[in-house]
């Protein structure tokens, strides 16, 4: 990864879904090693912005680059495997065991599978490796997602309400994951209503209001 190129480089990005403008004129640059807290009220556009960065939604207008790749071009598909996402709903196959879920993620991305046991221990699921996703609590499923991202080692990690459903001990996983990404010269974006908790982890905060970025606060 070229450390001169910003991890996220948005200029004048807008997103229109149907007749609704969800994001308007968003300028956002995230450099290597940054952890950015993204705040805003309900419907402010936080999850949409996260989805644009994750390449799941194409910008309607503006210039958008993630990890050096233009999101308006076809190359955007090539960058997806380098972006880790933990959203509202755990992305696990309910019929498969936690170990099988991680095994598939490793195989599909070309990672070795021999670290699965250790990572499951790290997130406190060492004893639940053989349990199917549907038999796990929401909190356990969230932990399994953190295990997946620790295994896949993304260059950019996007966390939407990362503390939800995690107990105090598990909440440390958020810090563990973001610090491991930053240590590899990556970056992290944390979307949350829990400003106090996220600001402890973030090097910078930005706020969305009605689809526009209204505030930026550098903590360095």
């Amino acid at each position, binding site marked *: 990864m070229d450390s001169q190129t910003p991890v996220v480089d948005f200029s004048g990005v807008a997103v229109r879904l149907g007749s609704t403008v969800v994001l308007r004129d968003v300028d956002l640059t995230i450099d290597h090693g940054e952890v950015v807290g993204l705040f805003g009220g309900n419907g402010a556009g936080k999850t949409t912005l996260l989805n644009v960065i994750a390449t799941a939604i194409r910008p309607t207008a503006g210039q958008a680059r993630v990890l050096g790749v233009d999101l308006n071009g076809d190359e955007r598909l090539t960058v997806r495997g380098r972006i880790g996402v933990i*959203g509202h709903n755990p*992305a696990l196959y309910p019929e498969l065991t936690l170990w*099988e879920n991680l095994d598939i993620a490793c195989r599909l991305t070309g990672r070795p599978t021999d670290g699965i046991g250790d990572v499951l221990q790290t997130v406190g699921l060492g004893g639940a490796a053989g349990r199917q996703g549907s038999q796990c609590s929401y909190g356990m499923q969230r932990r399994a997602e953190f295990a997946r991202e620790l*295994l896949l080692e993304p260059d950019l990690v996007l966390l939407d309400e990362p503390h939800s459903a995690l107990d105090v001990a598990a909440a440390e996983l958020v810090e563990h994951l973001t610090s491991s990404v930053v240590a590899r010269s990556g970056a992290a974006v944390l979307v949350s209503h829990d400003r106090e908790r996220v600001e402890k982890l973030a090097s910078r905060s930005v706020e969305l209001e009605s689809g526009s970025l209204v505030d930026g606060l550098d903590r360095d």
Partner: protein
Amino acid sequence: MGWIVTEPTLSSQALTIAGRDIQRERRRGEVLWVILPFGAIAMLLIPFGIGIDTPMLRRIGPGLFWVVVLLFGVLVTVRRTAADTDTEQALMLRLGVDPVAELLGRSAASVAMLIGFQLVVGAVTIALYDVDIARWPVLIALVPLVAIGLGLLGTIAGGISGSSGGANLVPFLVAPLAIPLLLAATQSMDGSTPTGGILGWLLLIVVVDIVLAVIGVLTARPLQEIR
């Protein structure tokens, strides 16, 4: 942790997805415990509807078998693809899975299930309809070729039905592409078709399979984009 990452190949991704789908089906049992019994029951009920006339049943049995295989077979594959949750679809995007690998993997798993479906419903047909199986060697080629066509057709149709507003298009897509499969399969097993003619019908199924594979590859990426 610094793992050594090897770029996954199309075939390795497709194999992983096929294994995943078979394992999920093994645990969920939707094909085995829901669709397969309905297929067998359909073959059982038809004689009650049209009257138990053994010569007639013997004559129409193979045709009915292929109709049931086509209708239920497409159901097997469409349901599997369309039933994916948004989160499961997002996971494939997040992992950077090649949409062509996804198509091939899903279709391969469907083919395996459809071959099993055909064998069970075929056994029921032979038992209930007293059909002449003098041409059973043809089935060795016919069963996998039809399964490949249906597997691809169902996966493509499932991808479309999973996209916004796409569900209404499925019957219009499935019907024209399923008709040559049905026609060729029925004619291949028809005792009045000359041996040389069977080859022509089998070739038609191969052509349909190839056309479906090309359509699948060309539409895989756009369908992934709009889901």
